[in-house]
């Protein structure tokens, strides 16, 4: 078995017992990237040299007998909307094509101090706006399970990097499903922590009240290991949550007795693949058989939630993206007057989806429309939050689908923004409520494409999500864990 097929926890153990060196591990992933990424296009920027440099340093420190973080030497891929010092951070936008941040995001500082080699920056929908990674200004990323399919988005690059063995762990960001939906489409584990659990400092803002950095990994234990590193209060982020961070890796052994699980009944299942609904029911009966109390919970506001989300997120985006005006950094198109410079820079620098959302958001915040749109959406958000509070009085955990369909074809929804928006329907209300949510492999569609389950817990109960994910990993019928990449000459031994 190749090193790149190992999970982060396995690699961590092997590195700590000096079975392998960090350079060997990193080299294995870099070679894998060289081999498959030209087909998959998960990375915008690769940083092989820096990664090997870090790995070399970690090996040296380990030789010196220094106390190292369990993740020291375990490589990682980073979504390209997370600021990395001296390394360009493009947000997959022309407007930031050559932007090099002079500072590290708080999560990057954590990765660096733990000694995790950064393999590169992964592709996304421009400014994280999209559900297919097709809105990248540079190129789309392809789903390793079927190259004609999208990997989901916006953290498509990170999801593909992990799914295809190009990185054992990846950072993503989730505003309205951008970690969970691609995780589900690529058959990996995607965790969106509680809003505020992980610092947003350095995450390029899309919709500040919804944006959350999270993790894409091969399994729950890896997520736990990584969450231990990045979770916690950050004095640089006023919205980050104070309080102790538990050891997420401790006590992951699931015990289901008396666990109350609410299976989400969606207001409308229009557009849901029947196999998705079936998958959720199967998972529910597995839980029931294993001793959990399973009931049904309806979140009647789900439909309104989607509408509210597509007002609140664009409203905040219209403000957050105002700074890209060509004056200080990034792309500047010039002009004879300041207005002309603004207009040309933004006109050429932003792609169509970003422009669409800036327009929607500007409209929603405008005098005369504010009450009818933004304010009303905020009221819906409050109601959504309350309906979660109600649901969590009856249930410890909510179970649903992470995506209404398996991966769709490239180009299938690009002409119809509303259809594209609907692909986040399962994820969005969790985001509005700010609660933690996790997507995990839920089985295979008859087409062979992966399906994903989604678990949602009350605020700060990430541990419960990880325990439940461990349960499913152990007891549910597992589809193959990794895709067969038959475009690689001679195939590969990817299937476990």
């Amino acid at each position, binding site marked *: 078995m190749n090193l790149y097929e190992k999970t982060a926890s396995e690699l961590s153990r092997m590195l700590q017992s000096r079975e392998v060196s960090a350079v060997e591990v990193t080299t294995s992933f870099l070679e894998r990237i060289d081999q498959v990424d030209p087909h998959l296009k998960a990375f915008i920027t690769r940083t092989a040299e820096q990664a090997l440099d870090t790995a070399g340093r970690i090996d040296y420190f380990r030789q010196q007998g220094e106390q190292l973080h369990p993740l020291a030497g375990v490589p990682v891929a980073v979504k390209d909307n997370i600021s990395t010092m001296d390394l360009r951070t493009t*947000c997959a936008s022309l407007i930031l094509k050559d932007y090099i941040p002079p500072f590290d995001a708080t999560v990057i500082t954590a990765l660096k101090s733990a000694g995790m080699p950064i393999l590169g920056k992964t592709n996304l929908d421009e400014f994280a706006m999209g559900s297919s990674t097709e809105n990248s200004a540079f190129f789309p990323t392809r789903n390793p399970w079927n190259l004609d399919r999208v990997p989901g988005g916006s953290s498509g690059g990170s999801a593909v990097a992990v799914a295809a063995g190009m990185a054992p762990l990846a950072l993503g960001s989730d505003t309205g499903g951008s970690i969970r939906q691609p995780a589900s489409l690529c058959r990996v584990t995607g965790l969106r922590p509680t809003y505020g659990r992980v610092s947003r400092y350095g995450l390029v803002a899309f*919709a500040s009240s919804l944006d959350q950095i999270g993790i894409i990994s091969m399994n729950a234990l890896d997520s736990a290991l990584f969450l231990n590193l990045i979770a916690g209060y950050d004095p*640089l*982020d*006023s919205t980050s949550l104070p309080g102790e961070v538990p050891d997420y890796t401790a006590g992951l052994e699931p015990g289901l007795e008396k666990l109350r699980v609410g299976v989400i009944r969606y207001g409308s299942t229009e557009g849901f693949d029947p196999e998705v609904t079936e998958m959720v029911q199967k998972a529910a009966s597995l839980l029931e058989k294993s001793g959990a109390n399973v009931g049904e919970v309806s979140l009647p506001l789900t439909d309104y939630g989607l509408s509210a989300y597509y007002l609140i997120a664009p409203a905040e985006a219209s*403000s957050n993206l*105002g700074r890209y005006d060509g004056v200080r950094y990034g792309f500047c198109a010039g002009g004879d007057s300041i207005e002309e410079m603004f207009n040309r820079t933004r006109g050429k620098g932003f792609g169509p989806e970003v422009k669409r959302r800036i327009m929607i958001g500007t409209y929603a915040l405008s005098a005369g429309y504010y009450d009818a749109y933004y304010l009303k959406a905020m009221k819906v958000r409050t109601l959504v939050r309350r309906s979660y509070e109600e649901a969590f009085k009856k249930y410890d955990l909510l179970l649903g689908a992470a995506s209404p369909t398996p991966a769709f074809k490239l180009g299938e929804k690009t002409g119809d923004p509303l259809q594209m928006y609907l692909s986040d329907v399962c994820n969005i209300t969790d985001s509005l409520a700010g609660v933690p949510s996790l997507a995990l492999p839920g089985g295979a569609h008859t087409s062979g494409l992966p399906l994903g389950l989604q678990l949602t817990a009350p605020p700060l109960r990430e541990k419960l999500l990880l325990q439940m994910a461990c349960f499913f990993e152990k007891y549910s019928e597992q589809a193959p864990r990794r895709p067969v990449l038959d475009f690689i000459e001679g195939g590969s031994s990817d299937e476990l």
Partner: protein
Amino acid sequence: MNYDVVIGLEIHVELLTASKLFCGCSTAFGREPNSNCCPVCLGLPGSLPVFNRRAIELALKAALALNSEVQLQSRFDRKNYFYPDLPKAYQVSQYDQPLARGGYLEVEFEDGIHRVHLERVHLEEEAGKLIHAGDSIIGAGHSLVDYNRAGIPLLEIVTAPELHSGREARYFLEDLRTVLLYSGSSDCKMEEGSLRCDANISLRPKGSRELGTKAEVKNMNSFRSVELALDYEVGRQERVLSEGGKVIQETCHWDEEKKQTIALRSKEGSSDYRYFPEPDLLPLVLESSFIEELSRQLPELPARRRERLQEQYGLEKEEAFLLTANRDLGDFFEEAAKEYPDYRHLAKWVQGDLLYQLRESLKKVDELEPGLLADLLLLLDEGKINRPVAKELLAEMVKTGADPKEMVKDRGLEQISGRDTLLPVVEKVIAQNPEAVENYRRGKKKALAFLVGRVMAETQGRADPAELNRILQEKI
């Protein structure tokens, strides 16, 4: 004039913090452009704001000093607009939930004391500064931008439309400045831009209750230019109206050179700032105990102090005004008054010679020990030194902080008032200046002054002038 003038002011005051509102960058004035900047105040992608607690304290103190009602919960909002000096394309400000509501300031106008009401007091961040090629915003070929100022905490104070002339506006501003200086919230230096004032001004027919169309006047860089600009604008609007024209709602720029207001932009399609709650900051929730504590920390404010100075020290109103205009000067006076009982005399010295010497030696009053002035005046009252010597010693004292008693002792400056000591000197001077004596006898009064001067020279200025005069007149 057939019109009533209605003026409301919008005042921006930079708070006296060492660092900016949302980051640790220095607020120092006059540094090299773009040297006091970081990812946060430059609005780099991914940066986030964090409150400066000190700025909130200073803002609250200012609000309390202005009798404004501090809100236990307030909120920050984004004011969105595009301008090169605004790094994030929005200013973090407060919209419908300001830090404090209402308030007033009692100001003495020519026709008596008026209570000028405030609408609100709120906290926001400063923008950067544009430097236009050719020094004027109009027709500049290019502009440079300095973000050192961006993110400095700014207090916005909005008055009710209750002022009626340029002079009233100036008086109000002067008093506002004094109160803010007392509260310690700002250094209020108009020339450095740490206190700025925009004015909304409109005219309406006398007796009418409906407000007329207003113009906004900006770029007034001193109290004097506020008065000039507003008076100019009153005149302009009056001309327009009396000629049957209409005032259009616009923003005007005060041109200090030409001494006139120039229309900058029409406000007819007024900007839509698309305010919405700043999602990067939590609402500001204050404990009432914290507000009470800040309230306790406030010093006695000028209006109250003026009254007290008049009552306690028997000062005239004018004297009380002068002594309260500067908090440190008032403190100095009151400290010195503990050791010197003739308060009126003390007040005269403080606002006269002392202020003069402080200006001359570029010193601040808080650098000087109040007890020293008391000692000096006691020496004078006891007749140990004469007035000219007292003035010289004051100058020395302000410059070096030297003790007047020591100086008198060390330099033998004590006044010579004994007849026995003075008589031989007077006789010597008379003998040496027969011509002057002769002139005096012929009625030339000036000659006496000359002879006094000679005796003073002989005694190094220490002779008691009264005694000296008596002996001289007796002898010639």
